[in-house]
């Protein structure tokens, strides 16, 4: 598939996905408002805690807000874009995955394009507001703004990879096991705060198994001057991309399993 053709298809799929969701306009606005309020309250709680206790393991509110904002924005985008993978068990059960296999495009591409969920817009807006506030408070400007952006894109790739793995499990289990939520929603909740506050084992999971630290804590420290600013620390968000690539390879093993067992 050429790049031009790919981009054209993405554009058309996205337009159609938006159009079919906007058939239910009221629902869209209410849900956006709802998530905006819910996640807004969540940050208000963080704010309250910090104004009472001052700092957390040496992390002040604006610094924590930087992590929080980056992770929220990443997750909101990944969740909206990976909706097809998130609801993959539905596609397996209804047989619509068979239809995907009947079309001359890579299955992962079709699933990725099948739904771009607008409902996640509320979380995105909230995350963006928190991130903007943090950048302003920390006086980040010029090239320093590149790092949060780099963290966000790495985070998107990482969370996307988690959704791909979650979908891959469905080839073996049909239902999405609830335990996966530990890594999606649990991952967001965890990485919105400095990972250094958690016990060693939890930190290890989110550093080595699912490299959340490399899209949040490590590059943030490098940026804020509170930790190693080596080239490796600055390049750390690339781990998110490597994670996504690995996930897509595992996904292919899942497809091979599906086509040989027929679930």
């Amino acid at each position, binding site marked *: 598939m050429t790049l031009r*053709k790919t981009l*054209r*298809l993405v554009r*058309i*799929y996205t337009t*159609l996905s938006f*159009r*079919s*969701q906007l*058939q239910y306009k009221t629902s869209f606005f209410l849900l956006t408002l709802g998530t905006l309020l819910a996640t807004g309250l969540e940050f208000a709680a963080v704010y309250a805690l910090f104004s009472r206790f001052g700092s957390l393991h040496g992390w002040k509110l604006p610094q924590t807000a930087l992590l929080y904002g980056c992770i929220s924005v990443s997750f909101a985008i990944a969740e909206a874009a990976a909706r097809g993978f998130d609801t993959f068990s539905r596609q397996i059960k*209804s*047989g*619509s995955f*068979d*239809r995907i*296999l*009947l*079309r*001359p*495009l*890579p299955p992962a591409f079709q699933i990725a394009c099948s739904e771009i969920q607008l409902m996640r817009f509320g979380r995105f807006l909230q995350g963006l507001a928190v991130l903007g506030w943090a950048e302003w408070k920390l006086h980040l400007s010029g090239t320093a703004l590149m790092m949060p952006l780099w963290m966000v894109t790495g985070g998107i790739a990482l969370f996307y990879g988690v959704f791909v793995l979650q979908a891959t499990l469905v080839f073996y289990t049909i239902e999405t096991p609830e335990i996966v939520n530990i890594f999606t929603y649990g991952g967001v909740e965890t990485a919105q705060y400095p990972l250094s506050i958690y016990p060693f084992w939890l930190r290890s999971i989110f550093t080595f198994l699912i490299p959340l630290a490399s899209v949040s804590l490590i590059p943030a420290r490098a940026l804020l001057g509170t930790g190693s600013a080596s080239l490796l620390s600055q390049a750390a968000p690339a781990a998110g991309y490597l994670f996504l690539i690995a996930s897509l390879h595992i996904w292919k093993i899942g497809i091979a399993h599906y*086509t*040989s*067992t*027929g679930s």
Partner: protein
Amino acid sequence: MSALIEVENLTKTYTISERREGTWGALQGLIQRQTRKAPALRGVSFSLQPGEMVGYIGPNGAGKSTTIKILSGILVPDSGTCQALGCTPWRDRRRYVQQIGVVFGQRTQLWWDLPVRESFSLLREIYQIDDHAFRSAMQELQSLLQLEALLNTPVRQLSLGQRMRCDLAASLLHSPKLLFLDEPTIGLDAVSKLVVREFIRTLNRQRGVTVILTTHDMDDIEALCSRVIVIAEGKILLDGPLQQLRSAAGTERRLLIEMEKPGETPADEEARLVSCEGNRICLAFDPERTPAAALIARIAKKYAFRDLLVQEPSIEEVIARLYGTYPE
């Protein structure tokens, strides 16, 4: 002419994991899965020439959908070979599916919330159909399937018959040479069935599209297929002209009569009484020995009845008889 599809000795066995009962059973299942082998295909072979239209029939669970899935590249068989349109479907899947069309009567391939037209234009992109080809395909399909009025309607608002017409068109936009139809008339009203059948016939006769049709509807087979392949328990039971199926299974038909008065039982030398419930009588007869019209005329002369109906044996019945297990 060389074969369009050449299937040899396909086998497929599913492994089904069984759930044990109760909470304790579920916990046991986590540690040790209990599995059971379910053979779906046990050596299926056949070949199809270009332009053929074949009815692929058999009872539920006989292996029909497994065959269709393998032939369309969705499923990999345990053993056996298949060459179709110069490809091995499951190996050259993307190149192969570009040349085939598949319609599942039970589920739509159209985008539920979008007008039909939008689905079509997305398919056009997916299959990379060029402008000219797309326009001429649309024109032809529109007039054959009477789609004009439907194109701007969201799919979820279509009736089943309308949806099936659109689904057929959707599977044919890229002008496939080979078309799989999995129960295309299931649940349709009589008029829609006729439209669909007429369309399939035109497609096969005029465009030379090779068609493999699975169905439970004997009328579909009679209207469309000159050749039938009967599959049961994963094996091909019969492969030949429709006539062969009929004669292999016997030709008996049923005559259902609703009598004017209950308790009266019409008798005829050429017919056998199958059942009698109140004023509803069921007779069996062999149309080769006595035509339905003659039998009805004889009965009408002697008895008063309100209504009557001549019934073909269902596919299940025919196949079961073929098997020699039909309970009389």
